[in-house]
């Protein structure tokens, strides 16, 4: 275990150095959700039945979770890049704990995500979003958000390790942008046709978004929703547990035993 901690921290150090060496890329990724908040908040916000300020409060948790789901994409990009540029193979030939490399990547991603959440929430405050519940619940919301990010990153790492090329990973990764569209991240699901509503509410993004809205006190839990949305905190924890239980072992296995 101490081996894992030591190797994992060395790998975490590597990822943080990469960020330090290439800050432009990080700044670009972090400003993306802020831009979306301003666009969606003011453009969509003026077309919806909901008043603009109320929509922006509704949107902030949704964008936080949609951005967290991008962990699939970034995890996949990074893992695919390392595989296809030969870094993964060099690490595999070193006496390094098999779980340390993917773990280091996932933890580094978590650190970057946590740091990126701060400016986003500041802009959120500027456009009218507020913590309307208890501080304790708000801390819980942030913890849940990071847990979801962590789980998504492992999904991405697994897919990236299996990718055929950097380009293939890039294309598949970009497709994950679609995931929040079929959820309640940007719009309420109450008015969707029955089957589409069910589908959207079984999207993990919906459960986590609802949990954040509930914990921040931004919007109540919708009536008559599917189980993960009706019980958003339990639903979110269950989704994260399932994703981690499935994809973390798969990713470690894919790292330890490449197919070619």
């Amino acid at each position: 275990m101490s081996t894992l901690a030591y190797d994992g921290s060395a790998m975490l150090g590597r990822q943080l150095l990469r960020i330090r060496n290439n800050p432009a890329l990080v700044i670009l990724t972090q400003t993306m959700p802020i831009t979306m908040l301003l666009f969606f908040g003011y453009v969509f916000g003026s077309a919806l039945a909901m008043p603009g300020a109320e929509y922006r409060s509704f949107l902030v948790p949704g964008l936080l979770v949609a951005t967290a789901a991008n962990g699939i994409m970034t995890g996949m990009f990074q893992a695919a890049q390392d595989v296809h540029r030969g870094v993964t193979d060099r690490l595999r030939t070193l006496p390094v704990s098999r779980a340390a490399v993917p773990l280091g990547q996932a933890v580094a991603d978590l650190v970057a995500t946590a740091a990126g959440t701060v400016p986003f929430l500041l802009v959120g405050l500027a456009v009218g979003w507020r913590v309307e519940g208890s501080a304790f619940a708000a801390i819980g919301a942030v913890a849940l958000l990071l847990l979801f990010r962590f789980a998504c990153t492992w999904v991405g790492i697994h897919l990236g390790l299996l990718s055929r090329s950097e380009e293939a990973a890039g294309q598949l990764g970009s497709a994950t942008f679609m995931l929040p569209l079929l959820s309640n991240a940007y719009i309420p699901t109450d008015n969707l046709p029955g089957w589409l509503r069910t589908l959207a509410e079984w999207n993990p993004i919906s459960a986590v978004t609802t949990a954040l809205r509930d914990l921040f006190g931004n919007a109540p839990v919708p009536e008559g929703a599917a189980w993960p949305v009706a019980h958003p905190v339990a639903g979110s924890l269950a989704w994260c547990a399932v994703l981690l239980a499935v994809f973390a072992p798969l990713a470690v296995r894919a790292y330890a035993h490449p197919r070619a």
Partner: protein
Amino acid sequence: MTTTYAVLSEGLEKRFGEVHALRGLDLAVPEGTVCGLLGPNGAGKTTAVRLLTTLLRPDAGSARIAGHDLVREAAAVRRVIGVTGQYATVDGDLTGRQNLRLFARLHRVRGPAERADELLDRFGLTEAADRPASTWSGGMRRRLDLAASLIRRPDVLFLDEPTTGLDPAGRGAIWDAVRELKQDGTTVLLTTQYLEEADQLADDIALVDRGRVAQTGSPRHLKALIGSYAEVVVADAGLLARAAGVLDRLTGGEPTFDHARRAVGAVSRDTTLTLPRLVRELDAAGVPLLDARIEPPTLDEVFLRLTDDKEIAA
């Protein structure tokens, strides 16, 4: 005295779906020697290195690296090997120094920063050390790869096509490094498509063809296997037949004619045939010569003959 083998493999097999990449690879590399795995693209050289460096698990067969079982003691194998290849490389987003420090830390080297500086200095990379590796030239990248493989002074160093794509200066720098390592007692297993490279560096060559070792031996031994090539150019075309008779008697090989150049040559199975003797014998037979030469075969010829001509390889 018994020989200790740094790399010893028996019947290694690997399939990728329909492709049978290795069909029973047997290798024995004595400690402290340089072994060249030589073969065309697709022969299985890279698969062999990927198996021997624990990157892939064999479907059948076994191997020991510095005494450790490849599969059951993979972690121990990883502690004593260094790997540099087209696929095992450094992180281009980190600087050279950051890369070497990272690998030194992962190798549990005491004083990773000092070790990194030492290697940067040894490979003439100090000046570029703080620029991202992705901005380095190909030759410098390859030297950095090699430095990263030497962090913990490996017992066995695997180099997969270490000079592919390098200019002559870059190639020379890698060759010098390999020779130095050998002097320090490191066992080196390198794959190459360049016959000259194997000839220059390797104590022993293993010719790999279709997933198997077709032939092993020193470069000199492999050349002797197909003999040298003797050729004479006569002054008078009318004497070609007489010259061919002499060549036939001396070499035991089938003479071939190049009438335009008034030349006749034959492959000599007799490796003791010398140029003075060849000239004397032809002189005695009354054949005035314009030119004569005896050439050892190039490894290219050896390779083509030994992998395609099963009669000779057998």
